[in-house]
């Protein structure tokens, strides 16, 4: 492409881009692998022209009266063979030998980065992954890139996957300061047995429970589950290989390791085979405003060998609170269509709200009782909302609803497959204070052991999964949900908080995690994902014990044990009602 051109306001140079390709000519073998693997065609082979001007002694130029003379001087002083002045391979000019310029041009091939908005490098570094010679890698632009000011082409603001692109984490700053050595029986993470389980469901006091049973012939269903839950990521948002890998890993954890790990389906239905298998008991079926796949689930109810673990009614998502989703028509292939119960090739909107629900009371009452009824009130049903200053209102409502089994609150640091950047970056409520407020409210009502609150959103976003989870549990969460972390740890997702990749929404996921293209998702083997899920949970379990054992108070999950928490920020300490430590 010509370097000289007319420019538009949105014409960018490599310097304007968020990611810059560093290509080393001397190392490159021109094997084509980087350009073949690049998910966005950000790089291509290009032809370069290099001008080599031989050194000319100015005195000789002054002495020579004509250009021809200087030319002959250059020829002789250069002491090179005549090929220096002949055209290199790849040039077509065989004429004008007499008027050949003094400075011959060389033509060579190399890798060039493209600068168009749609072909801007996303920093995924797949080029580095395939390069046999370490000749290429992307670098983050240290400036505020100019790209962000022009990505709104055709008036369409940026959409992306990933998280908030902020590495700041309050959870990371919370320390566990109550280390028992001699004050309480010291526990040993390796030696002692811990009952790191949590309860999902309405836990009535024994007396009330017995009365309930006696009077109604029914008590609320409660599940004893592992406190780290794989949050809702739909079949469709995730590739078939990724989804199967997650489910397989969960089944393995349950059946081989006895860890009662549960996974939410997200809103996108559930493969018919899973619905009819015993593995369904490890699954939390999610229902959201699009209700996709639910008729298939209803059809499967008579054939279910097991009840699902629970039903999650999604009202909001921490990453894009108050916004819905849209699965673009081109992703709705035969498989997705079958699972969601729709025709192929239609766009599938999940509106921001459930249309027929106009108030908290109605939403909660209607949805919870409908879903409970579907399984004869044997399955816990709970809502999932985005963290908000209004979360308390929802919680208060739930406490008055005998069928409500819990509440999931998803904080602003949550991940998503697709959202407008503005929603992701600027909408939402931090999880810590939201969980804390809700938990303390339950304490105030004396119901903190009755209705569990689960936290989600950015847990482990800087890699500190167990510490973040433990902090939230001690702030009052009965358990935590993770999504993005699972993709990163179990499937090699390369998305980061410095805006690396984050292209989940475009279907070109280079790891095959969020793509429906078999050419991409077949890069991922479900078995490998399952194996990594197992490793993730087992190591999380060890880390969680490493945190709770030295606290020495109990071998069960320390929900709300906030006297163990401290932070080096006075205001935060005051706000969360934990200790201020410096």
């Amino acid at each position, binding site marked *: 492409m010509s370097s000289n051109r007319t420019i538009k306001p949105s014409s960018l140079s490599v310097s304007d881009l968020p990611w810059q390709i560093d290509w080393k000519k001397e190392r490159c073998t021109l094997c084509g692998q980087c350009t073949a693997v690049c998910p966005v065609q950000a790089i291509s082979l290009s032809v370069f022209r290099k001008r080599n001007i031989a050194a000319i002694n100015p005195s000789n130029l002054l002495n020579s009266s004509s250009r021809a003379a200087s030319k002959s001087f250059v020829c002789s002083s250069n002491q090179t063979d005549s090929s220096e002045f002949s055209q290199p391979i790849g040039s077509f000019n065989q*004429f004008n030998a007499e008027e050949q310029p003094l400075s011959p041009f060389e033509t060579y091939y190399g890798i060039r980065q493209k600068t168009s908005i749609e072909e801007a490098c996303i920093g995924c570094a797949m080029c580095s992954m395939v390069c046999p010679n370490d000749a290429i890698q992307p670098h983050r632009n240290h400036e505020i890139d100019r790209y962000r000011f022009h990505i709104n082409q055709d008036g369409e603001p940026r959409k992306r996957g990933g998280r908030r692109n902020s590495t700041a984490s309050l959870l990371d700053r919370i320390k566990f300061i109550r280390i028992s050595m001699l004050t309480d029986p010291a526990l040993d993470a390796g030696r002692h047995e811990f009952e790191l389980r949590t309860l999902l469901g309405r836990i009535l006091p024994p007396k009330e429970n017995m009365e309930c049973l006696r009077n109604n012939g029914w008590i609320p269903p409660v599940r004893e589950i592992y406190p780290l839950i794989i949050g809702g990521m739909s079949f469709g948002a995730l590739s078939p290989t990724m989804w199967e890998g997650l489910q397989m890993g969960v*089944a393995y954890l349950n059946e081989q390791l006895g860890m009662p790990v549960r996974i939410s389906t997200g809103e996108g239905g559930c493969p018919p*085979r899973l619905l009819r298998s015993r593995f369904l008991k490890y699954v939390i079926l999610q229902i959201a405003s699009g209700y996709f796949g639910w008729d298939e689930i209803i059809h499967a109810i008579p054939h279910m060998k097991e009840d699902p673990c629970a039903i999650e009614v999604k009202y909001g998502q921490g990453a894009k609170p108050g916004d819905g989703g849209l699965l673009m028509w081109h992703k709705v292939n035969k498989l997705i269509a079958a699972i969601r119960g729709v025709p192929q090739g239609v766009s599938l909107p999940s509106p921001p709200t459930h249309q027929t629900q106009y108030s908290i009371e109605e939403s909660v009452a209607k949805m919870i009782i409908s879903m409970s009824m579907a399984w004869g009130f044997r399955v816990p049903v709970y809502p999932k909302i985005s963290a908000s200053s209004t979360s308390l209102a929802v919680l208060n409502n739930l406490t008055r609803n005998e069928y409500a089994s819990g509440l999931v609150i998803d904080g602003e640091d949550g991940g998503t497959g697709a959202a407008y950047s503005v929603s992701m970056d600027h909408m939402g409520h931090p999880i810590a204070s939201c969980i804390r407020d809700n938990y303390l409210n339950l304490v105030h009502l004396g119901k903190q052991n009755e209705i569990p609150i689960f936290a989600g959103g950015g847990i482990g976003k800087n890699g500190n999964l167990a510490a973040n989870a433990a902090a939230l549990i001690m702030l009052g969460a009965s358990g935590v949900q993770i999504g993005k972390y699972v993709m990163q740890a179990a499937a090699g997702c390369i998305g980061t908080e410095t805006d690396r990749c984050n292209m989940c929404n475009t279907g070109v996921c280079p790891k095959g995690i969020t793509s429906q293209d078999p050419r991409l998702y077949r890069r991922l083997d479900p078995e490998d994902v399952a194996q990594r899920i197992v490793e993730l949970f087992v190591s999380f379990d060890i880390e969680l014990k490493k945190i709770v054992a030295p606290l020495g108070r109990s071998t069960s999950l320390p929900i709300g044990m906030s006297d163990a928490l401290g932070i080096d920020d006075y205001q935060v300490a005051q706000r969360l009602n934990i200790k201020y430590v410096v």
Partner: protein
Amino acid sequence: MNTNTFYVNIPGRQGDKRIPSRVLEEMIQNAVEQGHRAIEVNAYGQHGIGGRLWKAGSDKIKIRIQGQSGQRTGSLGFPNTEIEVMGPASDDIGWLNAGAEIVVHGNASNGVMNGAAQGKVYIGGNIGARGMTMTKRNPRFEPPELWVIGSAGDYFGEFMAGGIAVVCGYNSSRDLHPRKDGRDESNSILSQSVLGYRPLVGMVGGKVFCRGDATGFSKNDAKVIPITDLDWDWLCINLKVFLQKINKLQLFDNLSKRSEWTLIRAKTPQEKLIGKGRLSMQSFRQDVWDRELGKGGLIGDLQEVERGAIPLITKGDLRRMVPMWEHAKYKAPCQANCPTGIPVQERWHLIRQGLADEATSMGLKYTPFPATVCGYLCPNPCMASCTKNLQYMTPVNVKLLGRAGESSELPLDALPSVAEKSGKRIAVIGAGPGGISVAWHLTLKGHEAVLFDESKQIGGKISSVIPDSRLPKETLNKELERVKKFIPDIRLEQKITPKSFQKIKKEFDYVIVAAGARKPRMLPIQGVEFAISANDFLAKAKENQSNQTDTFIKAIRLKENQTKAVDSQVKTGENQAQAIDNQIKPLKKVVIIGAGNVGCDVATEAHRMGAETITLIDVQKPAAFGKEKEDAEAVGATFQWPCFTREITPNGVILDDGETLEADTVVISIGDVPDTEFLGKDIATRNGFVSVNEFNQTSDSAVFAIGDIVGPGLLTHAIGAGKRTAEAIDSIINGKEPKPVDARKEIDKSRISLEYFNPMIKSYNSLEECGSECASCGRCRDCSICVHVCPESAIDRFESEDGSYEYRADPQKCIGCGFCTGACPCGIWNLVSNTAV
């Protein structure tokens, strides 16, 4: 025990007062120091009795403890020490034992031998929790041993790192009176295991013999191994010793049944790494997952699932992107911008192949005037749009290509071949460039075209008004001769009237009106009669040159002019010519109103004819460009603008602001308008021009119009319109819907790699050089660079029998890297998304 030994007694209390542990320790140490080697202690719970007795040196020390031994009896014990606890023992007996032998005749509570490294502890009862924990073995010494006749409490052997423990699991009631059904009578769940609850967690060394159920131990850390003969012999020998120590030798036969014993040892670090007793994920998938869900797993019922991961770099159908050889899929910019649509890039390709005559002939398929127009008169939009301009590289010179026809001695039969005669007759009114073009192309397609023109010669304005300085006469004549040979029926000096037009319409199948715009536009101002139109001026000038008559210019003053000259176009005859001559004279000071390219031609001609000052004026920035403008400037013509003419007088031009531009000759050069009167009222016009659709069809479907009668344009526009109109009429004749013959789009110039060309070459001297330097946009130049650049050797060249060729990438080799696309000089290869799986 040897009861004959004399024991010195140390009491644990004096009167009512318990001796503190510190004092008792002092008393025992003093006794040893004093030479006592057998000491009996009446203990009252004192701490650590019997440890640390190194003062006896290599002498054996016997300590017998009566009463309540305290915690950590024998702790930090030395190898010379033998301790006998006559009753039960408290916590941590033998703690950190470094060699003492300790016998307990009763039970021992928690922490037996915790942290011990040497020595032996024999327990004649049961032990509490965390016995044999954290024991280790120092290679310098014999390993520590713990013998228990009964069972162990919970968490036995935690972090055990060495030593041997033997737990006999002897239970008097069970062992002496076993139930017939073999069930354990104990009520305690924990007592089902002789090693207690969760034994051996974190065990890394040593071994444990036990008799009875030991299934609850940590499988992660330890494993059961077979008891070898050597082990068994060791156990039997030492079991006797143990039983002797605790005075229960009679149990030997009962306890020495080999089958009742289990030997457990710590797993090695290597053993811990492999196999945790779980299924591999592969087996789980196969034997659990797929078995429950069905073949193909989660979605095996919904789609074919090919198992196994694919690599990042793929071939064949698994490529995400595939290269396409898009040769000639797009027009080169030169062709796309040529109003006549000449495929200039194809002609240069022929030149590169050494086929200069073919390149010339190819031109004739598109235009009857390759030399006259492409070579001289055309401003060459092809070159203006040339991709090479992007880098300020000189476009290859199409003028050279056009003029190649001049010198070419192509025989007449080298004219383009003509299609089979259709029998259709088409009248073309106007034998200017447009009319000749349409007649030419109709003839090519086998239709009979008849040219009508009112002048004496064909060629229209090319022949009549374009100065000879811009075009060698021989070139034009040669091309006009060719036209005459090709189109036999040319009828000159045919003035078309409304009546004769209707007659022609009846006589012919179709009529094409190409009469041009020959009526000069004049200004509606006072004194316009003193001015002359540019067309008249140029025609006269040309006539003057042809006649080579220096006496052409006669002295006729402007003021003697006649108003008749205004509509000179419709008048013929001597008086009119005379009038024009009058207007031109004396041609010293010339003002040209309208500074377009025609105005420039006027200026150049005026100069040739002797004008001294030449001024071109315009109401806006002069539209003149290119060669015409350069020539005018070269002869000293000046441009003035904006100038609004108020009046023309015999003295010159008076502008709106009152200024007078002195002139003896004023030429108005503000364009021409067509004369459409002869068409009658049935054919729609707009603003004086004939209205046509995209195929140049007028409101009368049998009448077409092209050229300046439709709207002002370049010669090449008229020629191109002629070609397209001929194609449209041909389609209609053949019963087809007319449509653009070549609807290809212009190639995206960014696809072309100009880096192959030397930007310092600024001019071209030969056709061959031009051919070589042509970037051949969108037209494969057959250079095979792609073949050489492809890292997988996937691209091959295939040639057909007719000499045509193509390049193809073998899907089985290609990885979709797009190197061919990146390297292709001509922008032929394109990397596109593979079709969906």
